């Protein structure tokens, strides 16, 4: 154990002496955590609608005001032709167009049937889908209300209605930040782990100091532990600052679940992750290579982890990739424990999988790290 003590002392000194590195570890990630959730708001609101009312009737006016009163839509233009409205779509000022045809009211009262034209900018599929679906339900509400009015004349009123009471659990105000902050924290810990650990050993290789270590009687696992432990501690510290200082204090996210459980999982995750960083560094000769490889995986870690887009929505093969991504599990666990108060029983699967990752990466890395060529 004594050599380990010296190794750790050395690593900490090197890290804390590196004035370029420290802000990169502590300031930049936490600053991002502070700012990014404000940007990461996927809630679809303010859907911009452009209305072409060719009818100018009481029906068309009623429908228009219903739409604008719904709170989902913002009027970006009230134009005279579809063409004009389309310009608004091209310049991204409008997301959808509602065109009310000539004689809308007349045809409805006379024929009991009329079409409405809706065009949605579907480049962003979610916004398009949701906007279309909101508009649809407003129109069918409107349809119902004019039907009822019309049927007031008929004596037998047999109108059935089903009320939907929707409840939003865990996040009643539908605050997207609550969803993003814990996950972004997870990503920040991941970045620190992979980049720092991945670059560190390679740096010693490139500078040549690793030779001096290799001729010494230091044991392989001591050296590796000497590299892992400092980053493990830094990971925990950054997480703690982010968790209590930013997530809790700034964003008011009070964890519902057991903190001990969360930290235990974080510790386990870091072991797996640092093992991965180590693995990268054992395969690289230069920092440039290590960085290229870790950048590659980092992109996958971030984009395929369910951080931004739901894993359920991915095609099967992509889901498989997402589920061999350790970050996916950590993000799931942190969201479950913090937001829903999930307990040990709920995350048992996650724990075993992460133990698997930890063993796999670290064993692989230790085997691949040779003191001899």
């Amino acid at each position: 154990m004594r050599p380990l003590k010296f190794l750790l002392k050395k690593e900490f000194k090197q890290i804390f002496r590196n004035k370029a590195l420290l802000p990169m570890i502590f300031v930049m990630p936490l600053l991002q955590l502070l700012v990014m959730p404000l940007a990461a708001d996927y809630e679809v609101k303010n859907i911009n609608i452009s209305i072409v009312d060719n009818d100018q009737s009481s029906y068309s006016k009623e429908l228009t005001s219903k739409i604008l009163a719904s709170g989902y839509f913002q009027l970006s233009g009230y134009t005279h032709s579809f063409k004009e409205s389309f310009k608004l779509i091209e310049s991204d000022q409008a997301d959808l167009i509602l065109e009310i045809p000539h004689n809308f009211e007349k045809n409805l009262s006379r024929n009991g049937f009329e079409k409405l034209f809706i065009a949605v900018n579907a480049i962003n599929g979610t916004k398009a889908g949701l906007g279309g679906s909101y508009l649809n339900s407003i129109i069918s509400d409107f349809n119902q209300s004019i039907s009822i009015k019309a049927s007031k004349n008929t004596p037998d009123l047999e109108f059935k209605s089903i009320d939907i009471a929707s409840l939003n659990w865990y996040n009643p105000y539908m605050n997207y930040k609550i969803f993003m902050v814990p996950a972004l924290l997870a990503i920040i810990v991941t970045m620190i782990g992979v980049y720092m650990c991945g670059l560190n050993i390679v740096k010693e290789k490139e500078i040549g100091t690793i030779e001096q270590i290799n001729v010494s009687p230091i044991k392989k696992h001591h050296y590796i532990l000497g590299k892992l432990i400092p980053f493990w501690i830094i990971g925990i510290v950054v997480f703690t600052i982010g968790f209590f200082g930013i997530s809790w204090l700034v964003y008011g996210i009070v964890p519902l679940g057991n903190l001990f459980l969360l930290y235990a999982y974080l510790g386990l995750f870091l072991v797996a992750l640092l093992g991965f960083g180590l693995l990268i560094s054992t395969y690289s000769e230069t920092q440039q290579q290590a960085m290229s490889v870790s950048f590659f995986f980092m992109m996958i870690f971030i984009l395929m982890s369910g951080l931004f887009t739901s894993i359920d929505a991915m095609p099967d093969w992509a889901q498989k990739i997402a589920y061999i991504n350790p970050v996916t599990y950590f993000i799931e666990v942190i969201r479950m424990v913090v937001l829903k108060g999930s307990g040990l029983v709920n995350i048992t699967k996650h724990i075993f999988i992460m133990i698997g990752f930890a063993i796999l990466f670290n064993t692989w890395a230790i085997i691949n790290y040779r003191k001899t060529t």
Partner: protein
Amino acid sequence: MEQLIIFIKKEFKHVFRDNKTLLMLFGLPIAQIILFGFALTNEIKNSKIVVCDYAQDISSIQITERIASSKNFEIKKTIFDKEQIEESFREGDVKLVVVFPANFHKDLNHFNTAQIQVIADASDPNTASTLTSYINNIVRGYQQELNMTSMGSIKIVPEIRMLYNPELKGSTNFVPGVMALVLLLVCVLMTSVSIVKEKEKGTMEILLVSPMNPFTVIIAKAVPYFFLSLVNLTLILLMSIYLLDMPMNGSMVLLYFVSSILILCALSLGLLISNVTETQESAMLITLMGMLLPVIMFSGFMFPLENMPVPLQVISNIVPSKWYYIIVKSIMIKGLGIMSIWKEVLILSLMTSGLLIVSLKNFNIRLQ
């Protein structure tokens, strides 16, 4: 001029000798376009939901069947006790619970009104509201059919046209985004690291004491990455069009022109980073730690910029990939010409020249 060519050759050799770096230069963009083009989607389908059915009557069963047959939902299980709802959510994969109260059908028939409770796991608010609105539509459809007979025969048929992306594919939105991300970051990273590496190894001094004009050194560093990035762009475009069925409605020439501006912008940024850093490690960390998330966030392909607080919207303006993303979408998908996007192109160009001037000036100062 001859010197310059010798130099550029040297730089190309550096790049092509290092397999792992080549992997990043070409493998990364290719793999990511494929991966994200297919995998990233905001479409919500097969969401697991739970039905809590106290009624178990004809109406509740009919509605449940409709939900089950929708491609958006997959009914994980049916429970008969509200107490189990919380547990279902805690397991993580259940996104929504539909509760039918007892006597649902009876209420609907006798009192003409009945209630359904929809409980969504709103820790992901977006999925929650989308799923709730889907359920809403299904129930409304059911209701409308029930009333068919009794209602006056008024019917409004909304005809919805999905412009640009009729199948609502995620790739239409994400591919231009990933393009912007990859081109920008790879280029910044490669330039900054390759220059700082020479600084770190001391070879930069050798170059600078040579009779070569310092700007020649810089140009020589930049040229290979400029060309490699264009090759990269071509690969990405070929894949997007032939593999991901991305439309290419606008002018290819214009797209290449604008992409060249973005690449130049990235090169200048890389140069700037290499001016302010002394080690490869810090150059990489600035790029990867400092730029990755902001570029993803502020380009606008992940999160709608208009949702952001105003200060952040202002900040997003200094992210070059934001403008590039708008331009690529306009050219490729909307098929717009330069007349419609000249503003964005101008902003990107100004940004590029600004960065270029600042970084070259900085480089010059460092030499004296």
